[in-house]
């Protein structure tokens, strides 16, 4: 693994499978009475959030705490320029406080890349979502959820998603989740189809390793998983689609459409859901929908990522009482 996790495209197949396998180990910790490992004791993880995202932040926070890291939450909402402090000065501040890892959520695409390559900080950088670029841990938790459901919890260990057909539906243009998923799922051997109105597909998508369709009904029957992306209602004000109702009719997932999916196929959603828009309540609340499971899996994945970036190569979960701790290692 590299020192940072900026883009899902940076992960090799073996990196990705290692993260998923490590996350399975972490998931077992969640079943213990004491859900805590000493692995990152004495290490500091900073959650640097320039954008509101309670879900992602608490997921990273829970992950770091279960690994016994010290967690600092730094909310820097609003643009760095309007706040008067630059990303650079914020980074230098965190460096001075001894951050071993910085988990960054930023409204500008490329901000985590900048943080990792500018020399402002020495620790690891984890991209927790940047603008409309990427959200690699979301893609990892999605892949983890798919492997568990489509391959099996134990059967999945060591395996990728070869041959699985994944459909991603919604606002591809503005979605960092879609970008990271396309990269990662392709790396893991899955066949990805993006479905959206043409206005919400980026110019240049033809180079992505996936198919594009404008017709949801045409692809449902051949999907092992259908991932519905959140569509912001305000997009219709910029003429991306005429009305909410028209969007829901053409691209929303309802009970009828779900019934046309193969029996084993799952419905996924990164949350928060717009019920009635991209997904009906009937689908959202059905046992085929993994939205809640994805949240739980998110903690396991983020534990795995923090462990692998900060903890080195020793087993994360020891057979004994779990007191083995690495105190000195290179970052």
């Amino acid at each position, binding site marked *: 693994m590299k020192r940072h996790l900026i883009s899902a495209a940076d992960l090799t197949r073996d990196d990705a499978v290692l993260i998923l396998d490590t996350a399975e180990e972490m998931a077992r910790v969640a079943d213990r009475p004491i859900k805590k490992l000493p692995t990152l004791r004495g290490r500091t993880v900073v959650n640097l959030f320039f954008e509101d995202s309670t879900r992602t932040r608490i997921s990273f926070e829970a992950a770091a705490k279960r690994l016994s890291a010290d967690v600092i939450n730094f909310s820097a909402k609003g*643009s*760095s*320029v309007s706040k008067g402090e*630059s*990303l*650079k000065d914020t980074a230098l501040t965190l460096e001075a406080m001894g951050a071993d890892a910085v988990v960054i959520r*930023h*409204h*500008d*695409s*490329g*901000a985590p*890349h*900048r943080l990792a*390559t*500018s020399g402002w900080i020495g620790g690891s950088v984890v991209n927790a979502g*940047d*603008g*409309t*670029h*990427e959200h690699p841990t979301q893609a990892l938790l999605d892949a983890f959820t798919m492997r568990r459901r489509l391959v099996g919890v134990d059967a999945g260990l060591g395996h990728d998603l070869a041959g699985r057909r994944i459909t991603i539906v919604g606002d591809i243009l503005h979605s*960092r989740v879609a*970008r990271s998923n396309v990269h990662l799922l392709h790396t893991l051997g899955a066949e990805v189809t993006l479905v959206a109105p043409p206005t919400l597909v*980026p*110019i*240049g*998508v*033809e*180079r*992505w390793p996936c198919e594009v369709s404008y017709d949801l009904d045409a692809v449902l029957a051949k999907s092992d998983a259908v991932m519905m992306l959140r569509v912001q209602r305000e997009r219709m004000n910029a003429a991306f689609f005429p009305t909410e109702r028209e969007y829901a009719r053409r691209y929303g997932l309802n009970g009828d459409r779900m019934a046309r999916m193969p029996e084993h196929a799952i419905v996924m959603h990164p949350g928060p859901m717009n019920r009635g828009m991209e997904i009906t309540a009937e689908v959202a609340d059905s046992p085929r929908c993994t939205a809640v499971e994805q949240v739980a899996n998110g903690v396991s994945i983020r534990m795995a990522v923090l462990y692998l970036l900060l903890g080195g190569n020793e087993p994360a979960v020891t057979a004994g009482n779990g007191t083995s701790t690495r105190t000195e290692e290179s970052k």
Partner: protein
Amino acid sequence: MGQILIRGAKILGGEPQDVLITDETITAVGTDLTVSSAEGAQVIEADGKILLPGLVDLHTHLREPGREDSETVLTGTKAAAVGGFTAVHAMANTFPVADTAGVVEQVWRLGKESGYCDVQPVGAVTVGLEGKKLAELGAMHDSAAGVRVFSDDGKCVDDAVIMRRALEYVKAFDGVVAQHAQEPRLTEGAQMNEGIVSAELGLGGWPAVAEESIIARDVLLAAHVGSRVHICHLSTAGSVEIVRWAKSKGWNVTAEVTPHHLLLTDELVRSYNPVYKVNPPLRTEADVMALREALADGTIDCVATDHAPHPHEDKDCEWGAAAMGMVGLETALSVVQHTMVDSGLLDWAGVADRMSFRPAHIGRLEGHGRPVSAGEPANLTLLDSAYRGEVDPAHFASRSRNTPYEGRELPGRVTHTFLRGRATVVDGKLA
């Protein structure tokens, strides 16, 4: 009487000749020239260096008044001299905007005081660059600055009626409107060229059509009202096609290209390094090749730097928060040599045409863009085209360092620049 004898210079790349300068004027061109008296005379051994007419930039941001932290007329004209320029057009997007006779005269006067390079102020087309109301174009023309080129550069004159009126109005004094072609609605939130790279990076796209649609409209408007329009920093293959078509109709359309659009592509944005953030954005390899070809065949009239200095903090940040623009005066000729001459697309006479004769003619500048011959003003640039070296912004005369070429090896180095017979640059250093 002061005399300078330049010995063995390849004028416009021709056979080595001697050039004698007396005071402000070229007084003789030939072989085996001698100075009339050794007293006060200076001999420069050119040793086969290339002698060009002093370069003329149609598009320079000198930032004064208002942003003296990034550049002043003095530092900007020093940078111009180092780059081999003897005249620059100072863009109007200062603070306050150069939309009155008072501001253009201030810039003009600062240029006179600097003494490194002639400064021809550009006047704003509309009040405050807001695109709503015509600025007093006549007053700016009639002022001491004698403005002939008008531009809202940085912003597009997007209202078709305002553009039409401006084109018509400047006919009264042989003016030209230099359009920053950018359809504003198509470029809301635009961060880079829209295409394969923007799709991957998740940066807001600046589509080629936003430039091309405005150029198409404006060449038609210029034809309709019988005026002349100049297209700033043309950046796409499609724009080239439209300008080529307009010229084939005999319409009075001219266009410029920046050095960076002749060399760099949007692939560089993958680094998210804001030094590559510029407006119009870096385009694709196919666009770069089309621009080079168009400059070679004359569809694009001239190279203009769009020298856009920014203080370090405006680039030392995340991409979205960074300012758009690159400095260019001190590297322009090297980039043109690299992309056009060393590639065989243009000879040195062509470079003189695209970087001196034509821009001077578009700006209706007197005393610049003249042949290197006896009786002409001694505005000259001597280039060591055999030189190869890495660009080091630490040595820039400009107050700003936002160059995309840092560490890149480029050919050619200006060793001497003469402004009306006075050396502003000697041995590559400011005199």
